[in-house]
């Protein structure tokens, strides 16, 4: 689904590259989390995939086609929900469709409504985003990401601003959404437990520059619950990942 081939990138203001000859790939339908220390370049990987940054070298492919020759190939959900306060929730959700411009107004409304039903916000479409709680806003932002129509979703720490209990609810909710939609998800998080709970596979970004991502298969199938995290093999992997990240921090 997504392939990085020998990709390098350096910010103009920096003396050395942040990403150096990085190669990795994500299979169709996978839920893959990227974890790593702050500032190591995880979000830069996303910005390279969604075209906000241009790589200095190497190629990125989505569905075996170079992203340079594609449009609307990925849905991006940033850390903050970025809902526009002057639009209602439904109007926010239909924004990607408006930009694509392929559908009529009633069709866009219908699709937005379906997306809101999918995320459990059908009663909130006409409300202002300010009336929504943090978790509901993230669900609306997720519905908007779904309406990009892309099979590849890039979720950049979408729950980082939420309180702990809301995060727990939201991760269960996201897993359910993924099981229904079966889109390919690339998910950035600082939370090892969150990555373990959600992912098929975890990629660990170590010190900058990122030259490779160490891949770990999560030793549990789906469906998952909070108890899944208590399994000895999950616990062992959690310890291993935390000690890796700690080592990097020191």
């Amino acid at each position: 689904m997504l392939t990085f081939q020998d990709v390098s990138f350096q910010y103009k203001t920096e003396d050395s590259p942040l990403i150096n000859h990085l190669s990795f790939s994500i299979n169709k339908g996978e839920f893959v989390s990227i974890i790593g220390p702050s500032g190591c370049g995880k979000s830069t990987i996303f910005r390279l995939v969604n075209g906000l940054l241009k790589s200095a070298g190497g190629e990125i492919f989505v569905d075996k086609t170079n992203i340079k020759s594609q449009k609307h190939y990925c849905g991006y959900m940033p850390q903050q929900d970025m809902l526009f306060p002057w639009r209602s929730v439904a109007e926010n959700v239909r924004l990607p469709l408006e930009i694509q411009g392929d559908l009529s107004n009633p069709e866009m409304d219908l699709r937005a409504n379906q997306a809101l039903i999918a995320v459990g916000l059908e009663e909130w479409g006409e409300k202002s985003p300010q009336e929504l709680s943090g978790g509901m806003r993230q669900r609306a932002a997720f519905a908007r990401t779904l309406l990009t129509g892309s099979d590849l979703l890039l979720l950049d720490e979408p729950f980082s601003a939420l309180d702990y209990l809301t995060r727990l609810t939201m991760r269960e909710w996201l897993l359910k959404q993924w099981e229904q939609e079966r889109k390919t998800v690339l998910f950035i998080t600082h939370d090892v437990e969150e990555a373990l709970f959600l992912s098929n596979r975890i990629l660990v970004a170590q010190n900058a520059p990122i030259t490779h991502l160490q891949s770990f298969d999560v030793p549990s199938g789906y469906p998952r619950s909070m108890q899944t995290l208590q399994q000895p093999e999950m616990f062992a992997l959690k310890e291993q990942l935390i000690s890796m990240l700690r080592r990097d921090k020191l």
Partner: protein
Amino acid sequence: MRKTNRANIPAALLSLALLMIWQAAAMGIQAAYILPSPLQVILRLWELRRPLFSAHLPATMTVVVVGLVLSVFLGLGLAILMDCYPAAEKALYPLIIASQTIPTTALAPLFVLWFGYGLWSKVLVTVLMTFFPITITVFDGFRSVKTEMTDLLFTFGANKQQIFWKLKFPTILPYFFSAIKMAIPLSIIGAAIGEWLGAQNGLGYFSRRMMTQLDGAGVFAPILLLSVVAMILVGIISIIEKRVLTWRGQ
């Protein structure tokens, strides 16, 4: 009592106190050609209502409206130009700032020399005074557009035009209304200065004529009228702003 009414009480009390001080001072001085009392001014306004309302107010309002419309076009145009082209910002911004160091009152007689006693000399003074707050405030609005929101629209495949209408335009609207509220009193002052220095009609002209007749209350009457008109216009804009920007402050 409504909350807004209660909030206006301090301002109303202070205004009343200032008027009482003014009335007392005028009664103490006992020379209406130097300092007429507020009651004398209101009485004179009533006596002069016919020439003021039928001839001079419309003349001044024509200058204000034409000047304001031109300033809005000029201010918005410059702000959009500077937002779209960084080179234009570098070239224009210092010039726009420099334009405000020119003493308008000193330039106004020159405009009369160039354009005569007609409408355009006064309009030019008005434009010179009002385009600046519109340009700078709206440009500040453009600068306040969140990069993350622009990035998000870009990932949806938005072009520059879509980014302008869906993100930048709603973002600058509150700034635009603030600019207009600043520009209205300035345009009235500009029109009055223009008329004061060279005109055949208008409230500024009328005020100067009363000065030559040592009619203190007659000088103040058109000034009072200008103030009231400015407050009414700002009030109307505030009402429109509240209706349009329903999402503001939520």
